[in-house]
């Protein structure tokens, strides 16, 4: 137990950024509470009621959730609850004289241990879903209607771990934060915390902390400082103010249109890796979404997403953007982004291997599902479908033919397909040199890959990192040529690599004539500031 007076700094791992000053609320493990057991018959009835109630509560929770990942987790739990094979061993144990809570816990623990022992991490990860479920049922047996404590304002919740369903049932507004003894920055709950901007630190280890201990949680450094002194508090307060000020300044600038000093408008779009990011973003921030990395959909723990799941995500993106264009890139797996079960394993040189459109054309069944979902979503906004890693015109022709087939298939099913544009990423030098031969509606320059392919310097090879520089004339000249081709053909052109948000590179990109970039949401304020300061005169 930490001394109740002296400052103690606990080091964990950062899981969700932000700073919180408050008091520790220790979340006791609900499993260890005692309850008065009844007869075998009464206990069996109590368990039956608790299972029913838990299934009802979970179904009600599912209704309120609008993200596919979370509702799939809950659906799995409901399916387990509805399976007699789950409860049967518990009823037998109760018949043998055990109280309902102990019997059910024993069954869940045994199943969770079995899952954990699986060689496959997918199965092992399901153990926490089982424990989440077990805890819910046992809490109901203990007569607790609400599964979660009400958090006072400024509470820093300290627990071993936190399940997604418990996180979702709590109010996290007003400076509440999370400190976990175990947990992981990649856990589902950490993702939820980031999307709701709840500061979170994980992996603090087996620490005992007295309830109501004053503390400062630093989600950037991954620390929990107990019993902070006056100086610690003052410094923390300064950082909080600075952070808020920085946010405010950027936020103000980011909501205004970007215009060079010569008065030319530059459109700034967003790169989105996970649609959850949109929850906290104002569409006024951008002129559209310039890159949606659909790989995130294919990296879920549940394998390849089906058409409905994809459609719902695409529709959500388009609706969020209102009348702004949304560029969705078809699956860009391969290279440094393997997708189990799809990309080749053990390619000697994956960046030059089966990736992007090459992979999609090699797996038309998977590609068609994505195209169907995309085309179905087209009616919800201004959709631009972007094909990655195109090298030669016949790849674009094949992709276009598939798109047409899918459109006809959907129309034959009586579904309406809205208007959309079909374009290409320009990232392979072969394509950049022969652009006029490609039948497309727009270009988007992928500066990261374009740079590595032009300079033959791998993104993953730190020994040649100096060479992979977008400021090399070869890269800037190629970008200028792509912009010129777009202008000649009357096509929109944008750039969606790291170069667009790099203060060192962006002025040079503007000098090539480029007037549209797509960057991470956090970089929008900075990018607009650079654009507003730029003029042709300042940059020959």
């Amino acid at each position, binding site marked *: 137990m930490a001394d109740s007076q002296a400052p103690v700094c606990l080091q964990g791992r950062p899981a969700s950024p932000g700073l919180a000053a408050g008091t520790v609320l220790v979340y006791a493990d609900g499993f260890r509470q005692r309850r008065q057991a009844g007869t075998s018959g009464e206990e069996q009835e109590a368990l039956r009621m608790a299972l029913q109630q838990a299934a009802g509560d979970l179904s009600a929770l599912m209704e309120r959730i609008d993200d596919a990942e979370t509702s799939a987790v809950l*659906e*799995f739990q409901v*399916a387990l609850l509805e399976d007699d*094979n789950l409860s049967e061993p518990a009823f037998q144990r109760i018949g043998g004289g055990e109280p309902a809570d102990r019997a059910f816990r024993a069954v869940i623990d045994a199943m969770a241990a079995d899952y954990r022992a699986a060689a*496959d991490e997918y*199965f092992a990860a399901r153990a926490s879903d089982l424990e989440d479920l077990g805890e819910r049922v046992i809490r109901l047996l203990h007569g607790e209607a609400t599964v979660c404590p009400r958090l006072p304002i400024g509470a820093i919740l300290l627990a071993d771990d936190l399940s997604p369903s418990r996180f979702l049932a709590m109010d996290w507004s007003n400076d509440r934060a999370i400190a976990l003894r175990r947990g992981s920055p990649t856990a589902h709950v950490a993702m939820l915390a980031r999307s709701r901007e709840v500061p979170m630190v994980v992996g603090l280890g087996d620490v005992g902390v007295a309830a109501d201990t004053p503390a400062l949680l630093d989600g950037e450094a991954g620390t929990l400082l107990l019993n902070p002194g006056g100086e610690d508090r003052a410094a923390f307060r300064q950082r909080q103010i600075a952070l808020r000020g920085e946010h405010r300044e950027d936020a103000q600038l980011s909501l205004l249109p970007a215009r060079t000093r010569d008065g030319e408008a530059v459109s700034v779009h967003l790169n989105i890796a996970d649609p959850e990011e949109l929850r906290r973003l104002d569409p006024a921030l951008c002129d559209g979404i310039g890159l949606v990395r659909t790989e995130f959909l294919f990296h879920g*723990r*549940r*394998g390849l997403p*089906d058409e409905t799941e994809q459609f719902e995500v695409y529709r959500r993106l388009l609706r969020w953007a209102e009348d702004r264009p949304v560029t969705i890139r078809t699956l860009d797996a391969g290279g440094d982004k393997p997708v189990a079960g799809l990309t080749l394993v053990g390619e000697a040189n994956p960046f030059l291997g089966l990736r992007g459109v090459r992979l999609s054309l090699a797996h038309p069944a998977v590609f068609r599902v994505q195209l169907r979902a995309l085309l179905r979503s087209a009616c919800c906004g201004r959709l631009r479908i972007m094909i990655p890693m195109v090298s030669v015109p016949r790849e674009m022709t094949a992709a276009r033919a598939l798109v047409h087939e899918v459109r006809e298939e959907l129309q034959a099913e009586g579904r309406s397909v809205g208007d959309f544009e079909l374009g290409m990423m320009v990232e392979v030098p072969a394509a950049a040199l022969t652009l006029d031969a490609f039948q497309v509606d727009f270009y988007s320059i992928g500066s990261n890959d374009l740079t590595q392919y032009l300079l033959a310097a791998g993104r993953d090879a730190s020994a040649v990192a100096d060479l992979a520089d977008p400021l090399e004339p070869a890269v800037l000249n190629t970008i200028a040529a792509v912009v010129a081709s777009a202008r000649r053909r009357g096509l929109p052109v944008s750039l969606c690599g790291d170069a667009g948000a790099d203060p060192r590179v962006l002025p040079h990109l503007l000098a090539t004539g480029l007037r549209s970039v797509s960057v991470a949401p956090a970089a929008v304020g900075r990018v607009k500031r650079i654009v507003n300061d730029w003029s042709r005169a300042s940059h020959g």
Partner: protein
Amino acid sequence: MSETSRAQATVLLTHEAGLHARPSVSLTKRAKQFRARIQLALAPDGPWVDAKSIVKIMATKAPQGSTLHLRAEGEDADTAIHELVALVERDFEDHG
């Protein structure tokens, strides 16, 4: 005796995550739509488990690349096997 029809088939599991949470939910949900008794095994000689039980299906921990053996007994056995094989083949997509 002749009232009862039987059917069986094998299908290769291509799903990235194997018979993991969501595929299992999808498979058992579909299996429950049939009256036939439906069983699944990872080898031709069993052990056979109830294909309508998510607890049993999850316990097989079938990884990607497994061959799933399915068998059914009951009046709609044929349709059941046909539909379940199709479900696995299209990677557990709910819409075919």
